[in-house]
């Protein structure tokens, strides 16, 4: 988005005749530590493949580019020569001007009191100067977007919160600073510096932010904000340390300009899940100008074409729900998010604030057994269990790009899953029940899902929920509970998006009964070869392979508790069962499972073990590997699409076409060959993939496989014409006949590509055609 903004602003002056202050200064990001340099190298290798010039330079080169910089404490830097600066007010003016010329009316000094809604769609806007009818409304109110969202007839929750942000303006230097002087970002010092009218403009993102306007804007008008020099002191010290020559520079002003921040440091855009035509673009996390152009383009595409030209799920308003809207939550979370902008970003990082919001009934029990937690969509999920007597590193010291401290702990959990039995609390999954009085439920779902749901009662079907282009809107498992009702399990963060998609694509006269039952069930994954033994002891119903083949669901009693939905799948390809337990029985069933399981060596496991298991089995995960631009044919899931199931379904036409033409990208599994797990940087995601020395795509996820004793990366391989750069078809042959390398922070590692998982990893008891191939457990 920033790249598009850059190109847009560059030509804006020429297009509108309004000076925007655009100067191509280039930018230099400094590294004071080796870890920071690794982080910059990772960014650089990703930017390069996007065609954005950028290079890692030495401190000496920094001094040549910017003579005022103190380079004594630097280990390196990243130089981006095409970066530019603009004057934000002038850019806004130019954009407004250009819009006006194309017929846009701008009403200044007009305030919106609320947005009118009719039949679930925007109907107009009520302002202090009268009503305006409209079909679309875009909430771009910045830090007031939260309040504006609540003031529509149906409240829209837009989770963002403002923090005070300070930047310093100075008078010109004795020898005025050239306007083309590169912009400096010193994340370890938490500051940025650019030249401004011969002097400098410098601000930063401090460790101890000051959240503001928690109780609403009436509390304090934005004009009344004061400079707070004491608060700015650490940033000023960092500035003078970086550029000691500025000591004599005279201060002009310390500007206090609040910025809005979101719960995950990514901006919020897209259409409201509940009101059609209500769009949002807000929460820019202090990058409004640099991302604005690209974000505006995406939003325009969204409004016109129904979806942007790129995957923006990570920015979609629907990744949040009402649960992220508490002001207290937002206040605390943005205090963590704002410093994070300049914090070192390492793999597997969890937010520490706003936790323990949604929990399973077993939370305390698991916590007492050493569970370490991560959070997804407000839900606490166990990462792994620290055995008694073992200590892990402090949070700050555990940040690493190399082998993490939990490596052996997760290894032991994986081993137990492979050889005995483990139990994983997977209650966070989104769970819907869909039914009807007649056959309408089946009819509607057949249209919404690509796989055939007209299966005998008790069958589980893995299926995608596709869009018109055949891309995955959701990847889920659907159980046919009886003739007329279905139980649908989707990834945790699909709660809002999936619901909105179902609502939107249902016939308007539908009498379907749809209920979000996420909170009603605790899900335990009983995983491993001895799972069947544990379950047999707890139930009189036969559960052996012959009586309970995989991908079946039976309602049965476990211990004293009746009505437990037992499903023969584990989301990993390992043998075992998922137990969907009404929450009031959760503790009972857990206790029974643990006490019976003792003699089979049962232990708790967490999502890290699960993740390692599913990645070594080449299971894709929606939201990370799969997105709205990926079709089942591109990730080897043709068998989950029934093109000839007798009814039309969304995306069928696109898939038919693709089946004829072939695919332009292919989901591939890579096994790193010459990678030393103990010494080399670990892969994460987003690493460039090279085939025969040419860039062909990026990884989407990775994990260490304890079984293969190698790192496994998953990612998409494309085929670019070496001459024109045009995308060509990707055939299995193309994949198989290539030498691959994965580039981690600038260093290339040899990798072996595979289109199918190692069959040896599956238990011999299972036939290949019964193999369950699904996984949508978190990152």
């Amino acid at each position, binding site marked *: 988005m920033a790249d598009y903004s850059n190109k847009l602003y560059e030509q804006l002056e020429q297009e509108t005749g309004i000076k925007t202050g655009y100067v191509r200064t280039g930018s230099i990001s400094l590294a004071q530590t080796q870890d920071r340099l690794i982080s910059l190298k990772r960014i650089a290798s990703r930017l390069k493949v996007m065609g954005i010039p950028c290079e890692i330079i030495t401190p000496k080169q920094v001094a040549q580019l910017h003579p005022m910089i103190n380079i004594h404490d630097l280990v390196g830097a990243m130089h981006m020569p095409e970066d530019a600066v603009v004057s934000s007010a002038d850019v806004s003016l130019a954009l407004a001007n250009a819009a006006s010329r194309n017929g846009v009316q701008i009403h200044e000094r007009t305030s919106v009191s609320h947005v009118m809604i009719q039949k679930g769609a925007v109907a107009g806007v009520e302002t202090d100067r009268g009503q305006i009818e409209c079909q679309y409304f875009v909430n771009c109110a910045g830090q007031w977007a939260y309040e504006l969202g609540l003031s529509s007839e149906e409240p829209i929750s837009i989770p963002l919160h403002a923090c005070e942000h300070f930047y310093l303006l100075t008078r010109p230097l004795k020898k005025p600073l050239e306007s083309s002087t590169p912009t400096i970002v010193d994340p370890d010092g938490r500051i940025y510096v650019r030249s401004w009218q011969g002097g400098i403009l410098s601000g930063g993102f401090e460790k101890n932010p000051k959240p503001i306007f928690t109780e609403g804007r009436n509390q304090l008008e934005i004009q009344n904000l004061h400079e707070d*020099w*004491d608060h700015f*002191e650490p940033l000023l010290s960092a500035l003078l340390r970086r550029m000691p020559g500025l*000591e*004599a520079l*005279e201060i002009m002003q310390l500007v206090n300009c609040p910025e809005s921040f979101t719960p995950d440091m990514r901006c919020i855009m897209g259409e409201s899940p509940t009101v059609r035509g209500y769009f949002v673009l807000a929460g820019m996390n202090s990058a409004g100008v640099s991302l604005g152009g690209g974000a505006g383009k995406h939003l325009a595409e969204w409004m016109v074409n129904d979806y942007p030209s790129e995957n923006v799920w990570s920015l979609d308003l629907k990744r949040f729900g009402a649960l992220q809207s508490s002001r207290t939550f937002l206040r*605390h979370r943005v205090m963590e998010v704002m410093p994070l902008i300049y914090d070192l970003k390492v793999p597997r990082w969890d937010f520490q604030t706003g*936790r323990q919001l949604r929990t399973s009934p077993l939370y305390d029990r698991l916590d007492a057994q050493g569970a370490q937690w991560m959070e997804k969509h407000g839900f606490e999920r166990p990462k792994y269990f620290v055995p008694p007597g073992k200590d892990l590193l402090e949070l700050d010291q555990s940040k690493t790009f190399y082998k993490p401290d939990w490596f052996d702990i997760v290894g032991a959990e994986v081993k137990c899953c492979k050889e005995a039995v483990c139990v994983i609390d997977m209650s966070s999954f989104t769970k819907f029940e869909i039914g009807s009085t007649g056959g309408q439920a089946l009819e509607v779902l057949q249209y919404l899902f690509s796989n055939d749901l007209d299966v005998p009662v008790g069958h589980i079907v893995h299926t995608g929920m596709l869009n018109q282009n055949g891309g995955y809107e959701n990847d889920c498992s659907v159980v046919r509970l009886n003739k007329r009702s279905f139980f649908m399990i989707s990834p945790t963060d699909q709660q809002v998006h999936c619901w909105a998609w179902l609502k939107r694509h249902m016939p308007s006269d539908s009498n379907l009964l749809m209920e979000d039952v996420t909170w009603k069930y605790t899900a335990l994954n009983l995983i491993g070869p001895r799972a069947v033994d544990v379950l047999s002891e707890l139930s009189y119903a036969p559960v052996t392979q012959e009586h309970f083949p995989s991908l079946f669901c039976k309602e049965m009693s476990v211990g004293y508790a009746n009505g437990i939905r037992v499903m023969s799948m584990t989301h990993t390809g390992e043998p075992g069962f998922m137990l969907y337990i009404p929450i009031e029985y959760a503790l009972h069933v857990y206790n029974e499972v643990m006490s019976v399981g003792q003699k089979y060596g049962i232990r708790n496991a967490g999502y890290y073990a699960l993740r390692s298991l599913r990645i070594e089995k080449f299971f894709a995960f929606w939201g990370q590997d799969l997105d709205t631009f990926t079709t089942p044919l591109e990730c080897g899931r043709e068998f989950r699409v029934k093109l000839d199931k007798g009814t039309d379904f969304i995306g069928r036409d696109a898939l038919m076409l693709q089946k004829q033409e072939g695919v332009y990208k292919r989901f591939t599994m890579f096994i790193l060959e010459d990678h030393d797990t103990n010494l080399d940087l670990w892969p994460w995601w987003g690493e460039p993939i090279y085939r025969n020395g040419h860039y062909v795509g990026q990884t989407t996820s990775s994990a260490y496989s304890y079984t293969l004793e190698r790192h496994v990366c998953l990612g998409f391989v494309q085929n670019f014409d070496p001459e024109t750069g045009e995308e060509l078809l990707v055939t299995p042959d193309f994949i198989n006949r290539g030498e691959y390398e994965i580039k981690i922070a600038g260093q290339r590692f040899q990798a072996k590509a595979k289109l199918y998982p190692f069959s040896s990893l599956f238990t011999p008891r299972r036939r290949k055609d019964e193999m369950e191939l699904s996984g949508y457990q978190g990152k």
Partner: protein
Amino acid sequence: IPVRSSRLPLFCDAMPAPTQLFFPLIRNCEMGKIYSTACYCHHKHLCCLSPHLVHNHLRYAPQKKFATLCRPNENFSQFIHARSYVSTPQRFYLTPPQVNSILKANEYSFKVPEFDGKNVSSILGFDSNQLPANAPIEDRRSAATCLQTRGMLLGVFDGHAGCACAQAVSERLFYYIAVSLLPHETLLEIENAVESGRALLPILQWHKHPNDYFSKEASKLYFNSLRTYWQELIDLNTGETTDVKEALINAFKRLDNDISLEAQVGDPNSFLNYLVLRVAFSGATACVAHVDGVDLHIANTGDSRAMLGVQEEDGSWSAVALSYDHNAQNESEVARLKTEHPKVEEKSVVKQDRLLGLLMPFRAFGDVKFKWSIDLQKRVIESGPDQLNDNEYTKFIPPNYHTPPYLTAEPEVIYHKLRPQDKFLILATDGLWETMHRQDVVRIVGEYLTGVHHQQPIAVGGYKVTLGQMHGLLTERRARISSVFEDQNAATHLIRHAVGNNEFGTVDHERLSKMLSLPEELARMYRDDITIIVIQFNSHVVGAYQNEEF
């Protein structure tokens, strides 16, 4: 008496006066004579009884005895002047960092974190600290969060005749209170867990300074007594919800009763046997706050004090006492004592402002000398260990001792409903209250708590300021805030004032330095042990509670 005033001029040259010189003098006095005169001594709780006590395990520091001899201030100063040539003149100048390390050695802060996210506590956090005058210190403090019921418990305990009783009360009292507050089912659950050897539900989460210790040896004994208590509560099950006031009173009385019983029964382990006797024969006052939302209960036994800091609308501070001292200055206490004993004892029961002419607080834990019958005292001492028998203090029966008990541990409980203007609560032993007026105490804490956050901001305005100048100014300001003079802890700040205040009510470093460099034996003459807990309330939460009700 003048010595009590902290305004006493200091003669630094004479500080290290070797008090041994005066022992012969004291030894020559008859015991009875000492009783009659000794009551004037500075020692607040119990008069010294005999020179032998100087060396006993209860550590009645010698200086208290010689203080009895130099009652009038003039004498004292003359004596010091006269003494100055004997000892090597020594100058004690502690540098500011040295002063700070002494003041901060026992400081402790607990903040209910803002990041907690689930916090609805009306308490923001608390600061506590203590400064010893006795060696070892006889004050104790405790703070804990109730885990099975709501609320937080905080308390200060002022020991006398040794620290054993204060130590025991500080370890045990909150458990008794927490148990008294528990609903019947939880009690059953805990009892079942103990019965079947399962892990016990945690009852309290302690917030302790590393120096605040718990006795390992006695834990089993204490636990058994506590268990007997909850077993009785289970049997008594009234089915009614527990009233906090009643629970506090019951807990105090029960613990005192257990202390007394344990000493009568004894223990086969000689160490423990000696310990329970020491606990019972020493004494302690207690001032405990229970805070749950806007409901504040103060249970007080003795002469420590709870003081509420209230900020008026104009920003000024006023002090509201939430406890009554149980001593001779409290007329209703004197009246109570007189009605509890026959008319013939009217003159003797409170004499020279002391209980039976000996004890300053009129209510206390332990102190079985004022509770048991003479027979019982003799019996226990005779069958007790040698250390006890050799101890003049324990063997001594108070004069005019006709109708025991003269002393009770029953607290007076005051309920206060918190309002948004109630910003903080100070719990402190009398070591603080006798040096500073309550109004000053509240003002100093109030100004400290608000002032730390509101330093006058700097604005550049239209002045020409360079980055370097501004940086220098800011570093200086920051240094001032975090400087050695500035306290991070309200209780430390208060102690600094209590010990170091000069005539103008500001801290005088020289004075502070002298006071803190007093040798162990002398310190007790100038000040008592000081223990302070400052609890800060969250006005927003308190206000929200209030709004809920309307």
